[in-house]
C-alpha cells in the first residue's frame, strides 16, 4: 500500500481555487521532490496535508496508509506519523522549546496508546538529536523559535522531525535561509532518517539540496497541478531551462 496518496485534490482559499486536481502517490522508502514557481501551490499542499484550518477541500482525497487524512484533526495526523517542516516556523514566546517538545511528544505517544516518556529519558533523547544537528543546548531553553535566526528555526524543524520519527516528512523549503554548512548538517539529519518504512516529500526551489538529499521522483508543480514527474535528472533540467515550458502546459 502506498504511504501517502493525494488524489485529484481541489482546494480553495477564500473563494479562490489554488489546487486544481492535484495527484501524488508516495510509497514507503521513497523521497519525492516537488519543485515549482512561487505561488504554484506547494505550501498550500503541505498545509492541507497537515490539516491547517482555512483551506476548503472541494474535491479529491488524501489517504495516509489507506486512511482518510482529511477527516482527522491536525494533532491526530501528527500522532499517526505525518510531519510538516514549515517553510515559516512560528515563534512561541513564553513556551520553552524544551517544554513544548516534551508535551508534544507525550501527546503523540498518548494518542497512540504508548506510555509517556519521562523527563530524564526525554532529556537524553533531545540532547543526542540536538548534538547531531549542531544545535546548542541553550537554544532548547528559549521560547520556541524566539530570537532564533532563520537557519536556527529550520534546524529546529529538523530536530523535531528526528524526535518524532514520523512516517511521512514533508519538508517545505527547509533549505531556504540555511548557510552551506548548515544545509549539509540538516541534509545529513534528513538522510539519517531515511528508511525503508519512511517517506520524504522535499519541497525546494534549488537543485543543490537534491545533491544532498537525492530524490527518487521529482515533480514539477505549476498553477496548482503536478505538470510533470520524472527522475532526479528532471531537477537538473529545470535548473537549465526554468519553468517557462511548464507554465504553458498548465
Amino acid at each position, binding site marked *: 500500500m502506498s504511504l501517502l496518496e493525494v488524489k485529484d485534490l481541489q482546494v480553495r482559499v477564500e473563494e479562490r481555487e489554488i489546487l486544481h486536481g492535484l495527484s501524488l502517490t508516495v510509497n514507503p522508502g521513497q523521497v519525492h521532490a516537488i519543485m515549482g514557481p512561487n505561488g504554484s501551490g506547494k505550501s498550500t499542499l503541505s498545509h492541507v496535508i*497537515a*490539516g*491547517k*484550518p482555512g483551506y476548503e477541500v472541494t474535491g479529491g482525497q488524501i489517504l495516509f496508509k489507506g486512511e482518510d487524512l482529511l477527516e482527522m*484533526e*491536525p*494533532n491526530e*495526523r*501528527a*500522532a499517526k506519523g505525518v510531519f*510538516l517542516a*514549515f517553510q515559516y*516556523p*512560528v515563534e*512561541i*514566546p*513564553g*513556551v520553552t522549546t524544551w*517544554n*513544548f517538545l516534551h*508535551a*508534544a*511528544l507525550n*501527546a*503523540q505517544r498518548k*494518542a497512540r496508546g504508548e506510555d509517556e516518556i519521562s523527563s530524564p529519558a526525554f532529556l537524553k533523547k533531545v540532547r543526542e538529536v540536538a548534538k547531531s544537528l549542531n544545535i546548542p543546548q541553550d537554544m532548547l531553553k528559549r*521560547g520556541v523559535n524566539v530570537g532564533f535566526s532563520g537557519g536556527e528555526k529550520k534546524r529546529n524543524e529538523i530536530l*523535531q522531525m528526528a524526535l*518524532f520519527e514520523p512516517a511521512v516528512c514533508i519538508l517545505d523549503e527547509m533549505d531556504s535561509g540555511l548557510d552551506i554548512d548548515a544545509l549539509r548538517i540538516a541534509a545529513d539529519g534528513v538522510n539519517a532518517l531515511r528508511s525503508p518504512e519512511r517517506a520524504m516529500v522535499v519541497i525546494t526551489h534549488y537543485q543543490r539540496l537534491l545533491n544532498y538529499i537525492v530524490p527518487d521522483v521529482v515533480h514539477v508543480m505549476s498553477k496548482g497541478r503536478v505538470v510533470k514527474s520524472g527522475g532526479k535528472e528532471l531537477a537538473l533540467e529545470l535548473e537549465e531551462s526554468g519553468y517557462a515550458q511548464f507554465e504553458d502546459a498548465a
Partner: protein
Amino acid sequence: MNVVAKTETGRALSDAFAVARDRLPGKGKIADQRRQAFDAYERLGLPHRRIEDWKYTDLRALMREVLPLAPAPDAAALGRAAAAVKLRAIDGVRRLVLVDGAFAADLSDLGNLDKGLTIRPLREVLDAGDGALSTQAIATDVSNPMIALNGAMATDGVVIEVADGTVLVQPLHIVHVASGTAPASMFTRSLLRLGRDAGVTLVESYLAGEGAKAYQAHDGLIVSIGDNARLDHVRLIEDSVDAFNISSATVSLGAHAHFNTFGLTSGGHVSRYQLTVTCAGEGSKVETNGVNLINGTQHADTTLFMDHAVPHCASREIFRAVVDDRAHSVFQGRIIVRPDAQKTDAKMMTRALLLSDDAEADNKPELEIFADDVTCGHGATTGALDESLLFYMRARGLPEKEAQALLIQAFVGEAIESIASDALREVAIATAQRWLEARA
C-alpha cells in the same frame, strides 16, 4: 436624599445591622465609628453603574442585596472548613484561618511566634478597647460604600504587628473559608503593620468548604509598610463559582519601602478587589501584578488606585486577563502623580485574552499627572489566541486544549513570574494549572 437606600433591600440590611450590632466587637468609640460607617453605606447604598468607579461592576444588578451575617461556625462548620483548608494547604507557612468571619484558633497556628511578631484576632483587639490600633483597624473610607459597610460589619480578622527590624522567614497565610451551606455574608477586616526594616510575606486565600455556594465574602485589609521594609503579598481567590467576593486592601509605604503584590482570581461568581496603594515615603517601590482566569458567567474586577504622593517612587503594574465563555473581566488602573511627586516612574501594562466570542474584558487605565519631571506610561491590548501558533502546536501533536493551555500559561507567565518566592510562584502556577485542567 437617596431613594434607593430606602428600598426593601436597604431596609433589610438596616435591620440586619441593628440585629448584628450586638455581635460586633468594640464598644464606645469603635461602636460610633461603625455607626458612622454604616450611615455612610446607607446614604450611598449598593454601588451601581452610574457611579464611575463601579461602571463595569454594578453590584445593584449583580448582587442585588447584602446577605445577613453568617452564624458563628459550629463544630460541623469548622470541620468542613478544616477539610477545605487542608485541600489547599501551602507548606511552610504560618496559617491563620477565618471561618465564616470568625477567627478559628484551632485551625490556626499561633504557636512559637517569632520575636517581634504579634498576631491577635481583631475581635480580641476591639474588645480590649486598645485605642489607636482599634481605630486604625476599623478605619474606613466613607466615600466607598463597600469599604464603609465592611468597617461597619466586620466581626473578626487578624491584627498582625511586625516590629522594627524583624524579617520573617516563614510566610503568613490568612485563609478565608466559607463553611455554610445557607447563603450568608462574612465580614472580615485585617490589619498588618510592618515596622521599619521589617520583612514579611503574606498570602491570602479565599476558599469554600464543601457545599458552600452563594455566600458573600466581604473583606478588608489595611497595611502600613515602615521605612525600608518589604512586604510580599500573594492573593488567591478560589471561592465557589456562586460566591461574591468584595474586598479591598489599603496599603501605605514609608521611605524606601517595597511592596510586591500578586493576585490571581480564578474563583467566585462576582469579585471586586479594590487596591489602594500610597507611596508616602520617598524612594518606595511598588510592583502590582494580577491575573484573572475566568469562564462561565464569572465577573472579576480589579480596581487599582496608585497614589504617588512623594518624589522618587516607582510603580509597575502588569495585569493579564484570560476570559472564556461569557465571563467578564474588568481592570481599572488609576495612577495619580501629585504635584510634589517629581521623578516618579510609573508604568502599567494590561493585556486580555478572549477565548470566546462572548467573553468581555474592560480595561480602564487613567493617568493623572500633576508633576512635570516624571516617566509614566500605560499600554493595553485585547485579543484572541494566535491561530497560526495554535496550528503549529497542533501539527506537532498537541490537542487543541493542550495547545491553548500552553499559550495561556505563557500569557499569564509574566505576571506570575513577579512573585519573589519560588514556593509561592509554584502555588500560583498550580492554581492556574487547576483552572486550565478544569476547562480541558
